[in-house]
């Protein structure tokens, strides 16, 4: 395997790992609120977090530029204060992956939290345990299957992220070319041998993750 392929592979894993880390933390919090709390506009919040699942990646990339670009809503302030812009860095790739993977985490986790037996939650309360202990010791452990499946799916989705990454991080060889981006470059410049290797690698990796997600979502608690 040549250095380019190795770099892309390592970068993809790094981007997906970082993205999944935040997806899991934020995804669990959002899913928990959506599943357990009743508040006004709840379904609108759910819709907003689910939108990246159905919007074209270019649209997501566009929004991210509008928000985090050097002249963006938040990006401008960050750039003025620190001189740093996320654009065309691997952080941008991680951010793009985070946004597109988050809905998968929220959907699966919310469903599994909602399916936890109401009586078990009530039992925890009547035994004197508050909201936090009940969440960490009863609800989340019982929703574990869905949480793990969601995390694995998110990781697989982050590994495969292309469109939004291209718009936000660009396709800079040796810097932001994750596997999907590298495959695009290789194919468009006719370097088929390398492209083959990477396509097969990515397929195998994603296949393994999907398999794991299935195994976890079926396994008992």
């Amino acid at each position, binding site marked *: 395997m040549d250095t380019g392929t190795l770099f892309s592979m390592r970068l993809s894993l790094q981007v997906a790992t970082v993205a999944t880390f935040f997806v899991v933390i934020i995804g669990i919090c959002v899913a928990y609120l959506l599943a357990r709390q009743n508040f006004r506009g709840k379904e609108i919040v759910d819709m907003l977090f689910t939108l990246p699942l159905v919007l074209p990646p270019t649209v997501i990339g566009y929004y991210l530029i509008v928000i985090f670009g050097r002249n963006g809503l938040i990006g401008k302030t960050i750039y003025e204060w620190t001189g740093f812009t996320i654009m065309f860095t691997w952080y941008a790739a991680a951010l793009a992956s985070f946004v597109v993977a988050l809905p998968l985490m929220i959907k699966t986790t919310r469903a599994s939290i909602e399916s936890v*037996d109401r*009586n*078990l939650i*009530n*039992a*925890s*309360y*009547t*035994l*004197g*345990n*508050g909201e936090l*202990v009940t969440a960490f*010791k*009863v609800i989340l*452990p*019982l929703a574990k299957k869905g949480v793990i499946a969601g995390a694995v799916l998110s990781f697989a989705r982050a590994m495969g992220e292309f469109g939004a990454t291209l718009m936000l991080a660009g396709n800079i060889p040796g810097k932001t070319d994750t596997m999907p981006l590298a495959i695009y470059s290789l194919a468009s410049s006719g370097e088929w041998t390398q492209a083959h290797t990477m396509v097969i690698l990515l397929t195998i990796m994603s296949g393994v993750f999907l398999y794991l997600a299935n195994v976890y979502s079926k396994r008992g*608690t």
Partner: protein
Amino acid sequence: MGLSVTLKKKVNGFSLDVAWEIGDELGVLLGYSGSGKSMTLQMIAGLMIPDEGFVRSGSKAYFDSSEDLDTPPQARNFGYVFQDLALFPHMPIMRNILFGAPEVPKYEKLLRAQEMMDAFRLTGLENRYPSEISGGQKQRVAFARALIRHPDVLLLDEPFSALDQPLRIEMRHFLKEVRRRFEIPVIFVTHDFNEAAFLADKIIVYSQGGIVQMGSLAQVSAQPASPEVESLVKSVAPSLRAPEEAMFCEE
């Protein structure tokens, strides 16, 4: 200490309106399904909020709509045994029981749990999961878990309904034993007059969200207030009523 409640609640076309009180005795809420017995229990425990009324035990109020008081369920020191027992499937027996005493210091908690395990004949099952023990053992775990923090009131929602007859009878004796250990008000929900007859100090008969009769076993069985109460009382198999019931009436 006792327990006194007045509860009003309207949900989905069903309306509950009840008021009763009991002392440190076993009160049975008797009635057909859908008469509001379980709902009453949930409101006492704080799992459902009444529209109006109060829940008091001794001098302490847990809910009072006139004072906007609503203590959350975790802050009411009430033991609750659910119809399906609600043992945590992901925790071994010992952890299930310890989970019932979050505020008791660790050493004390372990001591109490050990006592419970001995008293409720659960020794040796500490590390088993609920799916690995028998129905009767599960019942006793549920009781141990509800009692480990020494609750002020014990609420039992048809806890024996899933058991077969011999085990039900064994569990009734077990509950009497529990009562000897803990002198607190116990509310027992059932639609089975046999069970009520064997256990109750006081019977409160529910029908369609209201109370149709309240009194001792002797009063209710001698003078049923309505044909419905009469049919509930008549469902008793005479053989099961005999000696213990007689003993009971004297108490």
